[in-house]
């Protein structure tokens, strides 16, 4: 698959990652394309989250390249990658638990705010204007994700589902160009999952940005994604449209075990 | 400034106002003595018995009707060797009616409070920093300055050296705490050593609370020291000499200490190690102090059994005695109603020659002298007892040798 045909957003070329003796990722290549929802599936420990961690710079693969807008991300620090417009959520919800939901979202506007410490101390004129402008921006997202009621609640005290939502809203507040969602529906009941799936689709409709999804719930994956990649023991064993993956033998084997 | 802060400030104000209401109370015919002392820190071993002696003298004076009917109030503040605490305590008690004297028992604190004392035209007493003799101001020291007493030790060393029939110059080592107090002796002391022709080794400094002092002792011993002066406030000198004894160097090298050296209490326990140690003191020590009826009677009256007697108590008494003497002079000059700290400052300079019942040499405060007394006595530990080996002898003026 060549780039010009699909207009790739992120191009991952043969990345490998190792912890001690464990090969977490083995020569994984994948293309995240503009205008698609891509799912990454695979059994537990297949290296899905490690894959995300490589993209957003927590881990640096010892081999391979991650190209984004012609830039190699492999050696960059996470905050640099974030400022390039790649946002992500976390499997185990990593919120700023001491802040209110609103401030969590405001914190996500970090890369869009230019005023420094000194003018922050004065909180006057431009700083105030900037604060208000960004506040207006995040209110849109609060509306989109229907979380008006929890705006001023401290997130540490929110129920699980709400926290997942804040996590997602926070990633959105960065106005990302690529959105990585790590199991956004894990641990939710059916209704919450439906809500979440709706939000993902809403976001996609509204922003037209590529969304990468790690998810275990096959129904959701098959329903809302355009393309699926399958990881097993750090290796990409399949990639294709949902229909193809459903019937892929290697995938079935990975999930059900060898007969 | 937020609304929260606004409310907090009002709370501060309310609290402060109520405290200010509480703290303004006064008594009839009373003067105050403030002691900023370290009762629970590194030099507590010196301050606790010192302030006991002081307090008991004041109690005794009050019991006898005070000085011309004026009672003396003792205020003891534990500073914990903490300058900030001491300074704020001074500020707290500064406006105590007729607070005449502040006794700041630590080099750091004394130097910090000296400035404030100057501004407030009051009088301060500090242990022995020669700086205050060099720059005559309102801070007085208890006896001869540290450097003077150290110079007296050097004098004795020269005598001892000659008495032993040795030729050439003795080599002297010095080790003490790594802080302002530990270095004060050398400002003048070093110059005096040079004057005597003594070979003075590079001084050694260690933190208070060091576990073993072997390193410093062996280095001094290796450099050929004949005499080693152990600084610090007891139990530090005792521990240093114990280490020296364990190293076996006390056999060859004479250990000396200044007046914060081992007291009879410590010597009782470490008699073997401390045997032969020379102590230069401006106040009576050991059995001499214990047998001074003036001291012993007061101790027995207020503190009971002599078993825990510490001779620093006697030194504390001499602070109280000079205070009473100066107060008498001041009251005679201006009377109680007009009495200001400044009068007390003048009075302290007039009690020259005041007799301290043998506890300490005659009072030497005068317009040109901030030294409490000029004499020191050399003691030596013999068979677990502190025995005088000289009479009172005048300490040389080492302060004037140093450019402060």
């Amino acid at each position, binding site marked *: 698959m060549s780039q010009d045909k699909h207009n790739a957003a992120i191009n991952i070329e043969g990345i490998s990652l190792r912890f001690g003796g464990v090969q977490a990722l083995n020569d994984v290549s994948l293309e995240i394309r503009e205008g698609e929802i891509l799912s990454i599936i695979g059994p537990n420990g297949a290296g899905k989250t490690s894959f995300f961690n490589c993209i*957003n710079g*927590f881990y640096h693969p010892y081999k391979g390249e991650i190209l984004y807008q012609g830039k190699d991300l492999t050696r960059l*620090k*996470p*905050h640099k990658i*974030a400022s390039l417009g790649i*946002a992500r959520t976390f499997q185990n919800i990593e*919120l*700023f*638990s*001491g*802040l209110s939901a609103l401030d969590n979202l405001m*914190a996500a506007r*970090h*890369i869009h705010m230019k005023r*420094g*410490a000194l*003018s*922050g*101390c*004065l*909180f006057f004129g431009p700083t*105030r204007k900037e604060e*208000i402008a960004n506040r207006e921006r995040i209110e849109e997202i609060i509306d989109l994700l229907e979380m008006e009621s929890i705006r001023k609640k401290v997130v540490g005290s929110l129920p699980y589902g709400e926290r997942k939502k804040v996590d997602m809203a926070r990633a959105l507040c960065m106005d990302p160009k690529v959105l990585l969602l790590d199991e956004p529906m894990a641990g939710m009941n059916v209704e919450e999952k439906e809500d979440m799936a709706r939000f993902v689709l809403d976001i996609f409709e509204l922003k037209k940005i590529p969304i990468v999804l790690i998810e275990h719930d096959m129904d959701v994956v098959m329903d809302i994604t355009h393309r699926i990649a399958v990881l097993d023991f750090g290796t990409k064993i399949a990639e294709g449209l949902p229909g193809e993956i459903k019937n892929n033998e290697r995938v079935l084997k990975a999930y059900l075990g060898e007969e | *400034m*937020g*609304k*929260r*802060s*606004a*409310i*907090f*400030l009002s709370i*501060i*104000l309310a*609290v*402060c*106002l109520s*405290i*200010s209401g509480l*703290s303004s109370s006064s008594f009839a015919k009373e003067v105050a003595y403030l002691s900023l002392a370290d*009762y629970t820190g590194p030099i507590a071993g010196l301050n606790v018995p010192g302030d006991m002696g002081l307090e008991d003298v004041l109690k005794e004076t009050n019991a006898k009707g005070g000085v011309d009917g004026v009672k003396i109030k003792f205020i003891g*503040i*534990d*500073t914990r060797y*903490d*300058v*900030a605490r001491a*300074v704020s305590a001074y*500020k*707290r008690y500064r*406006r105590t009616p007729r607070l005449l004297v502040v006794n700041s028992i630590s080099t*750091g*604190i004394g130097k*910090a409070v000296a*400035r*404030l004392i100057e*501004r407030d035209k009051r009088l301060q007493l500090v242990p022995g920093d020669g700086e205050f003799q060099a720059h005559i101001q309102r801070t007085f020291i208890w006896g001869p300055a540290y450097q003077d007493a150290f110079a007296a030790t050097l004098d004795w060393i020269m005598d001892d050296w000659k008495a032993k029939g040795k030729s050439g110059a003795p080599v002297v080592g010095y080790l003490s705490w790594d*802080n*302002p107090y530990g270095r004060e002796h050398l400002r003048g002391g070093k110059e005096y050593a040079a004057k005597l022709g003594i070979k003075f080794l590079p001084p050694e400094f260690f933190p208070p609370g060091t576990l073993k002092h072997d390193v410093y002792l062996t280095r001094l011993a290796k450099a050929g020291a004949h005499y080693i002066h152990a600084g610090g406030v007891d139990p530090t000198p005792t521990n240093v000499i114990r280490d020296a004894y364990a190293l076996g160097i006390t056999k060859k090298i004479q250990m000396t200490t200044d007046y914060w050296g081992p007291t009879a209490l410590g010597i009782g326990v470490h008699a073997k190690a401390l045997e032969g140690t020379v102590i230069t003191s401006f106040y009576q020590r050991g059995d001499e102090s214990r047998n001074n009826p003036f001291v012993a009677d007061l101790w027995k009256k207020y503190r009971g059994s002599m078993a825990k007697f510490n001779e620093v108590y006697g030194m504390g008494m001499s602070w109280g005695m000079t205070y009473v003497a100066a107060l008498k002079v001041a009251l005679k000059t201006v009377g109680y109603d007009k009495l200001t700290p400044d009068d007390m400052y003048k009075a302290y300079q007039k009690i020259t020659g005041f007799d301290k019942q043998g506890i300490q040499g005659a009072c030497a405060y005068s317009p040109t002298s901030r030294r409490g007394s000029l004499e020191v006595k050399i003691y030596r530990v013999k068979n677990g007892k502190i025995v005088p080996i000289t009479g009172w002898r005048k300490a040389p003026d080492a302060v004037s040798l140093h450019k402060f």
Partner: protein
Amino acid sequence: MRPCGVFDKSYGLDIAIIRTWQHWVILISALILLFLFPLFGSYYIISFMNYLAISVIVGLGLQIVSGYCGQISFGQAAFMAIGAYTSAVLTIKFGVSFWIALPLSGIMAGLVGIIGGAPSLRIKGMYLAMATIAIHFVVIWLILHMEITGSFKGLFPPPPSLGGFEFDTDERMFYIIMTVMVIMTYAARNLVRSKVGRAFVAIRDNDLAGEVMGVNLYYYKLLAFFVSCFYAGIAGSLWGHLITVVNSEQFTLMHALEYIGMLIIGGMGSIPGVFFGVLFIRILNELVMFTSPLLAKAVPWLGSSPAAALGLVAFGLALIIFLIFEPRGLAHRWEIFKASYRLYPFAY
């Protein structure tokens, strides 16, 4: 504090601290009262308030680095020392005016603070706390062993003066100290609710997530140390010119520990918490000071002046009680009180 029924009608109003005209009245009258205070306060109270205000400035700095940024620092006393010494050296040896030396000493302390904060790039939590203890001792050692700091003799900075007017008493210094404290409080309060403050909290609560949000951990941790030490430096400079002496024994580890204690009692991560903590500890100390002679009379075993030792026990017990029963400190109680006032007279 705002009564029931006052609503925010714009985002601007929502982020405002002072929302109603009543707030302005309270604030301004409190400020006026504060600055008129030397006219009717006793000397003891004024010097006590000076001490409080300086402690508040140090506490604010520590709150920023420890309470907001989550980097527990036991080095605050050492950075105070750097401020005090910088100011003293500048005014004495280079004849710089106090008004220039004051901010410079803050900046100097801040710069050293960046070096002191460097270990935070690799370690956190208790390890960092121990590293800052080590930094404290190294700084104090250097001060004691350098020539420019007057070595063991210390320095004697002159009182500040302005056009011939000498600020040489506590009453006069009161105005300088209080002005600086008010400005520093204002700055700290705003800093922590701006972008920078949120970045600090992001680092404290979840540094990994913070990085993903684009927070440069290195930059912001060092910035937090810079700001914190800047505050300590300013406080140190004020303290030095107030008591006109700086020496190495003035800044002990115990002070640094005391400030951490104040934050625990006042509440980590809260600007009013600093005021609560400072007031609580300092007043507790005064209470012990006043009551210990009575206690000593009742219990002779305690000795003649047990104030410092009893003060330690009281401080330690207060810390233990707060850590167990109210780990979020007095500020949390205050929030609860405010919230219920906001709802009054309704129950919800």
